[in-house]
């Protein structure tokens, strides 16, 4: 996987995740009851991520970044398909825990790839450029999704985001092939 491809990949999953995260709260609102439950849902996410980081860190060096990113993409693609089916608050809690694990995989891999590809002398420029594209993708996704939720149901955005994740997973495979050819 080359660096441009990585930016493209991160842009894609950035779009998918920004589609769901701001609006995700609407789902919790439909399912949950109180601010405390909001707090727990997000707290569980952060807490599981914290517990997973040491493990993921170790694996990253052993199995490689791309494998972990694949796990993230396909994991998220499948997980998002469960969201529309959540009707109880504990469903949301379970999903949040799983999202915490996958979120940690993504965050860690994002940084390890950057660390491996970015040349020290140009790190500022390169990481800056990386953030420009991923942020633009995220911004477009958030705004567009706002309109989507107005027209469609909240469930629809989970399906769309899931398809985007699946797409990103396929992109990773393709880059596999390209690398093999090279």
């Amino acid at each position, binding site marked *: 996987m080359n660096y441009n491809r990585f930016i493209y990949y991160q842009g894609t999953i950035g779009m998918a995740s920004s589609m769901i995260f701001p609006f995700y709260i609407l789902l919790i*609102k439909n399912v949950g*009851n*109180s601010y405390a439950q909001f707090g727990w849902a997000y707290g569980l996410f952060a807490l599981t991520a914290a517990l997973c980081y040491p493990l993921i860190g170790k694996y990253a060096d052993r199995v490689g970044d791309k494998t972990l990113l694949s796990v993230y993409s*396909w994991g998220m*693609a*499948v997980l998002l*398909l*469960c969201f*529309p*089916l959540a*009707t109880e608050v504990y469903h949301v809690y379970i999903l949040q825990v799983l999202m915490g694990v996958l979120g940690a995989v993504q965050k860690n891999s994002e940084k390890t790839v950057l660390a491996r590809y970015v040349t020290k002398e140009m790190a500022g420029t390169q990481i800056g450029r990386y953030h420009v594209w991923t942020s633009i993708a995220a911004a477009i996704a958030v705004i567009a999704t706002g309109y989507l939720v107005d027209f469609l149901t909240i*469930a629809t955005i989970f*399906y769309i985001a*899931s*398809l985007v994740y*699946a797409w990103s*997973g*396929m992109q990773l*495979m393709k880059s596999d092939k390209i690398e093999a050819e090279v």
Partner: protein
Amino acid sequence: MKKIGLVLLYCFILCLSAYFYSAHLHDSTAEAHQRLLPVKIRTVKPGTDEKDLQQLVQNANRSGDILSIAGMQHSQGGQTVYPDGIMVDMKPYNQILEVDEDAKTVTVQSGATWADIQEAVNPYGLSLKVSQSQNIFTIGGSLSVNAHGLDIRHGGLSDTVLSMRVLTADGEIRNLSPTENKELFYAIIGGYGLFGIILDATFQLTEDELYVTETQSMDFQDYPAYFKEQVKAKPEAKMHLARLSIAPESLLEEMYAITYETAPDQSKLPEHKQLKTENLVAVPKFFLGLSRINDAGKETFWKTQKTYTEGIDGKLVSRNNVMRSDSEFMEYDNSRKTEVLQEYFVPVDEFESYIPELKTVLEAHPDFNLLNVTVRYVDQNDNAVLSYAKEDMFSLVLLINQGTDPESMADTREVVQEMIDVTLAHHGSYYLPYFGYPTKSQMQKAYPRTNEFFQLKDRYDPDHRFKNLFYEEYRP
């Protein structure tokens, strides 16, 4: 190969999820369990023009669909919904058709709100004769619940309607007035959307006036005499409202009254004429929030209300502005709890003996969370088939905070039915737009013409094109 397998697996899970989701979506009982009335309607059709509405009714006649009619949907007894029916949303049908300055009339489409009318007639120095205390409701909705308000001089809402046009179940448009199609006219006012779609109505207006605010606090025993002597007998008193304490220490004992009297000097009207908008919503919202929590909160709320009322004594306000009461502070957003209203009518002379009995019911149920009780006056009026004002009555509006789970609902039902029994024992009645806690026999007692109402329904809408949950709950 592995990759194709992965993609296929994903597609399989996607289909599985979509299947379960759509199955869940079509299971109408599963949705919206936190609301008091979980109802799944098929579609919402906005009413935009007369021809479309006519077409809608004719199509429904062919397809057999049930229509329910909705305005702001603040009625709480399911008057605007029917399971798997089509809800006709009248809000977009909201034009002010004509203001006749000389004849002092206004003609409006039924989706317009009272606020819309106020904005249209205020520049002409005109004002509504009767409207609700809050102006957020649609004309069609208010007519269908035969609403009443603060005015004590102009009778009921039905007395101020000169004529209206109604789209009936046969798809025809009819003119109704106190002289033309009289029977249907008085069935549709307070008809809860069961006789047809009100298209537009013409109201008799009066002149906007400058009022001076008079406030007075007292014990409840003194209130009927105060009202008769200091309010009703005083020609300059035009609008009136009172509040009963909900604070535990003075529960249903202390009261304060606010009366709006024609100001001796009308020359200052232009200064007060501009329509006010809601301001400082956060302050009353905060105190009402305290009152929801516990008894101390209720004491604070009551004290604040009293202090505020003393503060407005002597203030000048235009009639149109009195009719623009704040309601935004009551908006309440909690999916586990909700707020419901009850309204009881009790003859003026029964008030003194009625209140202690009502208090006994409330004290027997310490968990019943009562947040506010306002008192208004309604003139005897039996125009409407379902008329609540069998005599000159005081109306008590109770704001209640309750849980939405089945036990909380059962608890509230019990208290409400007891309160209605007490009210009926004092020759009173109760208001129908609220949640269906009352029993059928309580409705029969409160509204002696109930059977006639449902017979009229069968006659004017033999195929039952217009139905709602209220109808299902209380039909014979």
